């Protein structure tokens, strides 16, 4: 294929037919020379099969951060290589400097870096590296078909982890946890319901905790100490159905749910509880269970990264079936969904009674501030259309209130909070339950 330089060459030949005799012959000569030069140039260009491409297969980055993906290009041919290449990623990977020019001597290798600032969480893929090898004159180049380029492109995936703004709440919540745990000396001994150890009575201990039977066996007065339960189970159920796609502020409801679930997972992992994850709409989208504490958290984060809202009605029956099938102990089930009447009344309510008998259920929903705003008319200048919308908003609010009441009647703890306090509130509910030993 020819370059613009070829066109320039032809353009340089333009005055010749006008100035010299034999115009048609000269035109043919100019064209012929240019074509000949371009042909030789293509022949002299280094073969594309000599290019070697290498790249790290995977990388991880938090959403909102920028990373670079190095690509190593080598010249395996015997000729010098003038190369131009484009490193294409999917648009949401936010690839910046994708086009590179380089000049490689035989056997030389060079590392290129493409800067990526992803705009969405999930797996962001490198699609293809398109290669173009120029001849020494720059008149023509070699470039192969898309399929060939696809075949030589080293596969690479950037795993973009979801935004986790509630990270800043973590120290505060962990401090609360440590108070329960007794690791902080402000409250004397640790609170909790689970038996920890027997130790000698010291003045100041609660006399109610003296273990008389143990004291009889020894010569000293012995007290029992307690600690919060460990190895409790916590299951985060993320609804990725249509209600999770609605935007709260600038992000979908699902992102807020992921943020809160992450905070909860980190907290529970620190408190030595087991955290499982179940994300579903019409099918189970992600499921994390089992495994050691150490590896659990990265697995959770990683599988949450790939979640995306889908425009389908969530089938809570899948979750219920899964939760009821489990033969494990009582768990804390936190369902992240929306307090919308239809999906909850039709999908969740029928199986709620069975769920609540086996597990403790918390339903967490981000409240949409816009509905409340729409229900309020301005003191002046409202139109009839505003009034109709306000009426519709009042209806929605009333409905939400009814659903909430219905859920609470069934023994479900409902967290209905604005985005700013959502994750914190969910964590507080967990800490409260843990402190009360009701997990």
């Amino acid at each position, binding site marked *: *294929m*020819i*370059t*613009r330089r070829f*066109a*320039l060459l*032809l*353009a340089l*030949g*333009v005055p010749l*037919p*006008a100035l010299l005799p034999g*115009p048609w012959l*000269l*035109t043919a000569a*100019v064209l012929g020379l240019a074509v000949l030069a371009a042909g030789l140039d293509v022949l002299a260009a280094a073969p594309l099969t000599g290019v070697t491409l290498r790249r790290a297969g995977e990388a991880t980055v938090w959403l909102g951060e920028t990373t670079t993906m190095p690509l190593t290009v080598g010249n395996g041919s015997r000729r010098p290589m003038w190369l*131009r*290449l484009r490193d*294409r*990623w*999917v*648009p*949401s990977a936010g690839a910046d400097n994708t086009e590179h020019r380089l000049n490689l001597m035989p056997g030389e290798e060079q590392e290129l870096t493409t800067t990526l600032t992803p705009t969405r969480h999930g797996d962001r893929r490198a699609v*293809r590296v*398109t290669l*173009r090898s120029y001849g020494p004159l720059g008149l023509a180049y070699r470039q192969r078909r*898309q399929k060939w380029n696809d075949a030589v492109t080293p596969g690479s995936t950037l795993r973009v982890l979801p935004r986790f703004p509630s990270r800043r709440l973590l120290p505060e919540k962990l401090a609360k946890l440590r108070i329960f745990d007794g690791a902080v000396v402000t409250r004397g001994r640790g609170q909790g319901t689970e038996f920890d150890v027997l130790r000698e009575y010291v003045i100041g201990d609660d006399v109610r905790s003296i273990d008389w039977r143990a004291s009889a066996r020894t010569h000293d007065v012995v007290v029992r100490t307690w600690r919060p339960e460990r190895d409790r189970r916590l299951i985060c159920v993320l609804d990725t159905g*249509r209600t999770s*796609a*609605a*935007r*709260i*502020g600038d992000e979908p409801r699902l992102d807020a749910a992921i943020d809160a679930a992450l905070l909860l997972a980190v907290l529970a992992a620190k408190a030595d509880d087991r955290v499982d994850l179940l994300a579903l709409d019409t099918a189970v989208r992600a499921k994390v269970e089992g495994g050691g504490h150490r590896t659990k958290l990265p697995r959770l984060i990683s599988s949450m990264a790939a979640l*995306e*809202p*889908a*425009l389908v009605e969530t089938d809570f029956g899948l979750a219920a079936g899964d939760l009821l099938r489990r033969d494990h102990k009582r768990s804390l089930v936190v369902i992240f969904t929306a307090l919308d009447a239809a999906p909850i009344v039709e999908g969740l309510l029928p199986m709620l009674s069975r769920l609540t008998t086996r597990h403790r259920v918390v339903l967490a929903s981000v409240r949409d501030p*816009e509905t409340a705003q*729409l*229900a*309020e*008319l*301005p*003191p*002046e200048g*409202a*139109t*009839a*259309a*505003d*009034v*109709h*919308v*306000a009426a*519709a*908003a*009042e209806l*929605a*609010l*009333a409905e939400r209130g009814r659903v909430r009441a219905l859920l609470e009647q069934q023994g479900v703890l409902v967290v209905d909070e604005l985005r700013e306090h959502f994750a914190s509130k969910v964590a507080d509910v967990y800490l409260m339950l843990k402190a009360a030993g009701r997990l």
Partner: protein
Amino acid sequence: MKSRRWLRFALPLGFVAALATMTGVAHVVQQPDPTDASFLSPTSTEGDGARLLADALTSDGVQVTVRSSSAEAITEAAAAGSVTLFVTTPGLVHPDYLERLATLPEQVRVVLVAPGQDELAAAGLSVPVGGPRWTATAPQPGCATDFANAAGPAAVQRWRYDVSAYDAVRCYGDGLVEFRSSQVAMTLVGAADPFRNDRSDEHGNRTLARGLLGRSPAVIWLDLHEREPAPDDSGRPTEPEQPEQPDPDPDGDDPDDSGDPSGDEEPTGEPQDGGEADQSAQGGGNGVSDSPLARAFPPAVWATLALLALAALALAAASARRLGAPVAEPLPVRVRAAETVRGLGGLYRRAGARSTSLATLQGAARVRLAEHYGLPADVSADEVAERVAATVGQPVLDVRHMLSGGIEDSDEELARAATTLQNLVRFVTGQQNWQQAPDEGNVT
């Protein structure tokens, strides 16, 4: 995805190509074929026959003799003296016979129907041919011959004959020309339409054909429908005569010879025209080189332009190839917040459900006020109204009307009632001063 993109490009192009091909094929099929037995045959009554014309000539008192061999027809014409030799299919006549036409005596008039460049050249006539047009058109006669004046417009202009080299009568925009080559009088008709049965009623076709052929007392009608074999040896004697005849091919090499056939005709044709005729002969029917635009500029300009066009083309081609196609990716689902609320509000508005909307707002307001006063949720509206009236200092009836009354069915009324209601709630719950809207609202 890929195949669809290919289709998107190919379908419209294919459609246009198919349309063009179909039109071309239909046109070709519709054209009369000289090898059909009926084509301009004096005995055929079909559309492309010429029975009507033959009958008309007979009734005009013209003696029509039909011949199916050129040799016979020419011999007879040479013997008969004042006669019109009507050649319907000059393309099928062997070139040797065409050549012999020039040897016919002076009184003979030869009428050729739609001869092509080759036939004219074979007949020794240097007449550049223009056309053909898509169909025959019927221009005004534009000449002062009897038959043309009588006929008026007639459909003869499909081919055009440039007879500027001769002292010729040029009619119908060169669609019909008459001139004298060596001795014989030649008439070239640019289309077969005037002679055909199905076209004889159009324009002045019938009159023109009768006038054209009825000038001599007898017509020898050469009705030929297949290519003739070469004359055995009879072609030879004509060859020595060739130098006398104008031959366009040798003419092309030497412009000076162009006026050769008749010295007195040369002054009429301008030297430029002679050159033009040469060019066309040289180009072998190349329409571009003899166009006036081509002659307006020197070839250097054209060569420069061509090179510029090539450079532009190369630039376009070089810019066209992408370094990898853009990548597509499914977009995430986006649902606006409170979308259903807005949709429901729109439905209320379209249905004109003003009282329903107001009742909903009033219900919500009562619940809020009851909460504020610490009343049970199922408290009656009157009780709430009394408490509010006490707070605000307004008649209970007015407040009750605000909290549960209906309205007149108009948008302004609805907006005012709803605003008043909410302002009242905000005042009672301490979020807003009383002064603003309710005073206005009280007027109702």
